[in-house]
């Protein structure tokens, strides 16, 4: 019994990481209907940026966020302003194919620069710290922090979306681009801000990913798929839904892995496909929040 509780709890906590993958994806889809195929590779890029920052400045990974988050946000802003804004329009193909090309470029650029070797960020003592939540049920300090950060990120995005002028601009632009311009909003800038914010979240997700496990240049696409599955399970357009989606995915993978190590990923994908079959709108489609 406690064995399963432990497994499910692990799944819930990793779900927080998936929710962060999903939140960045969901954010830009919500604002500009862009599905960024390179999203997973940008997460991995963030991990490598963190690797460079930690090794060159001797910072610990969590502190490195102070630099990695703004760096990724700037990359996001420029990427949207210089490249992705050109792809937006009625045609589906350009954004898909350009971000697909971008994914290949990032993967192979990282491969060229950092080789295919596995890397990991060392967070020191905190990595092995655990605490007992009840008799026989243990939680690692780092997964716990990761989950709390994920909840905070999603709550923060929710606040930003519904309580700030920038969030208002995001929603207005998403509703009606040309009228948004009549309000004095430069939609190119609004889109770039959305991408900057998405990559700020990606930066946080990337650092936690890199602390939790080994990473190499090829693991991006799987992260994109996890984030995407969490978005669809949770329901399009819902921020809290991404958290629920991430947690469901994490728990499904944890249970699958317990049954047979080969079933970890499969269990997650099958859960996604089942939800797509029985409830294609997701569990929380566009709730008011």
């Amino acid at each position, binding site marked *: 019994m406690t064995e399963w509780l432990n497994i499910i709890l692990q799944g819930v906590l990793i779900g927080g990481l998936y929710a962060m993958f999903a939140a960045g994806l969901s954010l830009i889809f919500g604002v500009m209907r862009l599905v960024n*195929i390179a999203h997973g590779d940008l997460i991995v890029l963030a991990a490598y940026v963190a690797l460079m920052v930690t090794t060159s400045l001797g910072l610990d990974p969590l502190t490195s966020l102070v630099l990695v988050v703004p760096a990724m946000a700037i990359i996001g802003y420029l990427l949207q302003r210089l490249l992705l804004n050109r792809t937006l329009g009625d045609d589906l193909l350009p954004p898909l194919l350009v971000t697909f090309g971008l994914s290949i470029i990032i993967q*192979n650029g990282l491969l060229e620069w950092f080789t295919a070797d596995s890397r990991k960020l060392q967070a020191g003592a905190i990595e092995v710290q655990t605490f007992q939540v009840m008799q026989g049920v243990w939680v690692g300090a780092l997964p716990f922090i990761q989950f709390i950060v994920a909840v905070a990120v999603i709550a923060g995005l929710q606040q930003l979306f519904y309580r700030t002028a920038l969030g208002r601009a995001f929603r207005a632009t998403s509703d009606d681009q040309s009228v948004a311009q009549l309000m004095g909003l430069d939609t190119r800038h609004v889109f770039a801000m959305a991408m900057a914010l998405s990559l700020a979240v990606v930066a946080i997700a990337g650092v936690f990913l890199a602390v939790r496990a080994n990473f190499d240049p090829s693991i991006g696409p799987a992260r994109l798929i996890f984030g995407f599955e969490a978005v669809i399970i949770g329901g399009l357009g819902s921020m809290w839904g991404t958290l629920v989606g991430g947690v469901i995915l994490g728990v499904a993978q944890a249970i699958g892995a317990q049954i047979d190590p080969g079933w970890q990923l499969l269990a997650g994908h099958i859960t996604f*496909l089942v939800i797509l079959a029985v409830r294609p709108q997701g569990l929380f489609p566009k709730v008011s929040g």
Partner: protein
Amino acid sequence: MSVVSHTVQHATRSSRIGVALIAVTLIALALAPFWGDRQTLRLLAEVYAFVALASLWNLLAGYAGLVSVGQQAFVGLGGYLLFWLVIVLGVHPVVAIFVAGPVAALIAIPVAALTFRLRGAYFAIGTWVVAEVFRLLASQISVLGGGSGISLPAAAVIAMAPTRQAREFEIYWLALALTVIVLAAIVALLRSRHGLALTAIRDNELAAQSSGIGVFRIKIIIYVLVAFGTSMVGALIFLQKLRISPDTAFSVNDWTAFVIFITVIGGIGRIEGPIIGTIIFFIMRQTLSDLGSLYLLIMGAVAIVVMLWAPKGLWGLIAERYGWQALPLQRHLVLKPTKTSGRPS
């Protein structure tokens, strides 16, 4: 006054020259075993496979608007079906290719039912998830070697043809024939009533819908047909390789990234695009492959540049510049003024 009579023609002068050129080229290629060495035959067979895969993806994405990044699902499925049919059921490898197609098409129906619930770009990632599921399932099949894969048994290989040379010729001709069949089927489809509907959908889906075209039904049909063809090509690819593993069979780079780049660079939504694209792709590969991952990086960059600044691809540029078309696909209204007695209008 004069009344204008009209006829609809497919052919133009350039397309008539094109058809003649194609016939000559095909004969030369069919005779390749008599003029080319082993290396050349292998390379050509690979070229044919990519022409077929890219043409099928082009039909899917460029004509039916179904942008899939998960076609490796069907390449791998075809390969695995072939190996399963040969190893478990003892089917002759060549027969297995032609069984793999329809079986994969059957499997594609529930896959379409599921992934079609996702719209637009999310459909793309959904197809990718399906390919991942196929890959993970394939690595669970212990009789086919699980995660590490399996080779085709020597007995089955010898059953194809007694000598290696005969086998290689056989595979070469199969690859050429399959690609010609795939291309001919696509051309026939595009020239049919359904082709017109597809063009209407591509140009304006909403308008096509309101004019009574069953958009959803046509898209499902195309998806299943493309799965049919893609799986047969996949089966042939792995018959040539004589070995299969989940990672090679369901590789997103090999069977989707390259295929997309080929189509985009050559010209998406044009039948000639994938052929031109494949030629360019192989020239780039032969000259740049020493660069390793840099070569893929360059390919990604070229695809982005083409997509943004020449969205119709290289063939699109050429066709627009000179009004060429190699295959008689576009319909031309030919107006012939004829003299008639002055009827009141």
